[in-house]
């Protein structure tokens, strides 16, 4: 068996599931730094200008010393404000550096391992599983569980709790019918969203408009028209059809009888959950996060690789744990796909492809049609304390004479 080959850790490709591990803190670091830099540039220009003006006016005796002091107070306040902002950015920077350090260290552990049989690999792989579990929990909004697991395993620097908590908050606010948080996020990420050609902001603006129309009073309709002029009309070129529909919505109110489905859809409360998923999609794309939880990716590939035709069959085999099924301690390990934890989940994935048989040596056929390797039959007979010349079926427990066995050439 080319087992050695299969156990080798392929370093070029072993970290596919771990790509966001370094990418995300790096992206966040860049973004955080850009924001900090922007703040410094903006505030320094304003301060230099104010300073210059005050000095000039003071020299020209256009400003009294009292006013100079007043301006100085304003400048000091401005600088204190900037310092506060920068402290927040600096804290975030420290946190991200710490994360990057921890993550590089975690990945470096793997680079010393060459085989999955390495005892250290199991610990590493368990840590990876914990990371994937936290990621799964965060993406589904099971935030308390995610934090509990991260705490328990002391792996805060290896998971992205903060990022997903922020995302969760915005998603929930959308699900509860509020666009403000999502719009603020759009504003913070304007450039990037434009690059991604995300429709999120446009859809949020439409929703604001729709909510004004929903109230269905004259004053709100006037407000809606003003809103549309300011926030929806600029998207005319990008989304001509939708903009036209928005205009037509003025004539189609939610209470109308026989509201055409096209317009009814805009008024539907489902819009909010759609907005929430549009937001999540944009958020993940922007930060380079995979579209679905990495646990899904790992599971669909893992379940298939492990699955065999026997796992969902009606026959009982030595590695399944179907109910009412006696397995012996000889079948040292229950197959994970047969185990009730995963059996149902694995039903819809294809089973693994094998081009070579994988069988025990010296196969023997029992009179009941079952085939086992000689070594296993011998060991089980010894463990069961059978008389000389007898064997016991590992699955059914039937006892046969050795003379009744036939050699199998498979």
């Amino acid at each position, binding site marked *: 068996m080319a087992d050695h080959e299969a156990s080798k850790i392929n370093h070029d490709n072993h970290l596919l599931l771990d790509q966001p591990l370094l990418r995300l803190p790096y992206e966040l670091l860049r973004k955080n730094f850009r924001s900090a830099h922007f703040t410094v540039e903006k505030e320094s220009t304003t301060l230099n200008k104010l300073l210059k003006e005050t000095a000039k006016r003071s020299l020209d005796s256009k400003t009294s010393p009292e006013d100079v002091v007043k301006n100085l107070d304003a400048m000091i306040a401005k600088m204190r404000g900037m310092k506060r902002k920068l402290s927040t950015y600096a804290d975030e920077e420290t946190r991200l550096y710490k994360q990057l350090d921890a993550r590089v260290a975690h990945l470096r552990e793997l680079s010393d391992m060459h085989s999955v049989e390495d005892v250290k690999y199991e610990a590493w792989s368990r840590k990876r599983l914990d990371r994937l579990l936290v990621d799964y929990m965060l993406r589904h909004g099971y935030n308390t569980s995610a934090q509990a697991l991260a705490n328990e395993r002391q792996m805060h620097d290896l998971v992205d709790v903060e990022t997903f908590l922020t995302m969760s908050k915005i998603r929930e606010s959308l699900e509860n019918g509020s666009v403000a948080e999502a719009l603020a996020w759009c504003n913070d990420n304007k450039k990037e969203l434009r690059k991604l050609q995300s429709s999120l902001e446009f859809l949020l603006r439409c929703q604001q408009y729709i909510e004004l129309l929903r109230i269905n009073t004259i004053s709100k309709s006037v407000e809606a028209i003003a809103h549309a002029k300011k926030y929806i009309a600029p998207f005319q070129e990008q989304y001509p059809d939708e903009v036209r529909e928005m205009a037509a919505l003025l004539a189609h109110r939610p209470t109308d009888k026989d509201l055409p489905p096209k317009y009814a859809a805009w008024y539907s409360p489902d819009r909010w959950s759609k907005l929430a998923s549009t937001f999540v999609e944009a958020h993940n794309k922007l930060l380079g996060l995979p579209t679905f939880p990495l646990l899904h990716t790992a599971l669909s590939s893992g379940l298939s690789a492990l699955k065999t035709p026997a796992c969902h069959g009606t026959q009982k085999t030595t590695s*399944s*744990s179907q109910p009412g099924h*006696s397995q*012996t301690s000889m079948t040292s390990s229950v197959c994970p796909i*047969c185990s009730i*934890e995963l059996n149902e989940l694995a039903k819809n994935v294809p089973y693994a*492809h094998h081009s070579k048989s994988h069988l025990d040596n010296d196969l023997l056929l029992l009179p009941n049609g079952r085939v086992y390797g000689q070594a296993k039959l011998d060991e089980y007979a010894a463990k069961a304390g059978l008389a000389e010349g007898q064997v016991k079926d590992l699955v059914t427990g039937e006892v046969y004479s050795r003379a009744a066995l036939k050699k199998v050439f498979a």
Partner: protein
Amino acid sequence: MTAQATAMEALQKELDRLNRTPGLSATIDKVDKIIEMLTSVKDQIVQSGMDTHVASMSITRTQNPIKSTFEKINDDLKGVTATQRKLGKMLDKHFPLKDLPSEHDAMADQEPLINRAISMHLLREGQFSVASTFIEETGDAATLDNVNAVIEGQDQANASDNYDDEPMDEDRDDDDDDEDEYMSPLEGVASLGFRQLQNLSSLQSHELEAKFSQMYTILQDIKSRNLLSAIEWARSNSVELEARGSNLEFELSRLQYVWLFKGPSVNGLPDNELNGTAGALLYAQQNFWRFGNRYIGEIQQLANAQIYARNLSESPYRHIFSTETAFADVASSFTREFCSLLGLSAESPLYIAVTAGALALPLLIKYQQATRAKGTEWTTTNELAFETPLPERMLYHSIFVCPVSKEQTTEQNPPMMIPCGHVLAKETLQRLLKGTRFKCPYCPAEGLEKDARRIMI
């Protein structure tokens, strides 16, 4: 050093450099300086009694230092930007972004089942408090309904099992689906564990938690060299264990004997008549009768060792008395047996599946890229179209690939043994048939269709 290790080292170096580059905290220090300068100008003006000249002079003089401080800040920040860019390039070079399969998420609609798998994983890992938080947060009702639905489904499947003890009739038509469905009297006993588990689940998994917590208590005892709780558990489950052909109870009792035999200087137990060689003998007299003749040879060896007590390390029995790995060994047998009686595998299936997933993923991606390049579509079939080799210990079932058709046998296309002892897939055999006869593709033997028999590998 592997390429990976080199890359990681380079990355670490870049990160260290970034950590040393004056970043935002250095900027804050400089902003403090600016605040200081502004405050001192203000103080000068106030102290001068609001003198016009002082005001204009001091504020004019402070312009340049503040401007240059801002310039320094800008230089610092530009330096950081450059270093960050380098880190980014390093990431791109050594860890180029590779696309994950993203078109089709087979797990998308499986949230309840995944949640259940996670709950059970956390319980079996001993993460009881996280597990209960998770079960609560995912809405235990949904998760547990699901558990019950699955289990009921299996129950029904079970009920339709043929409980007939009669061995398989060899001449029966192969198409009869029920032919393999017979159950030995032992199976009823072994299924007890599973039935128990079904009920446990309906009790909001608290009892499953209790079971695992019992397992952890016992494992903890074994770790601290106390076998009594493990022996007690094995004794109360001796019928099920024996049906599985497990030696656990004897292994534990034998280790207890060995441990007592070693005496207080090794085992740290009280130095009295219950300890040492005499204590071991007493323990044997009180307990070994339970095993009858089953382990008579081993028990004789244990008794004979008494003679060599003074110089055990030179005796023929020294291997039995080496306890280096013995406690770890019984701990892993115990875990295996404990989980098996619950119908669960000893290792977490979720852990195995995710590890196997990481190993198989590169092949999956490679295959998807190849099919995309060819323009052929990804079709969901029963079998993966490419091989995903896993380490030996991750192969749990025997796999038979027909040497002629190169196909894996399934229930629809089972392995058939022909009279010469060779095995072929059923479809292969049918293709070889000339009338009712066929010739073995591997040896000169010929056979009749009716003499080929379906086997279970």
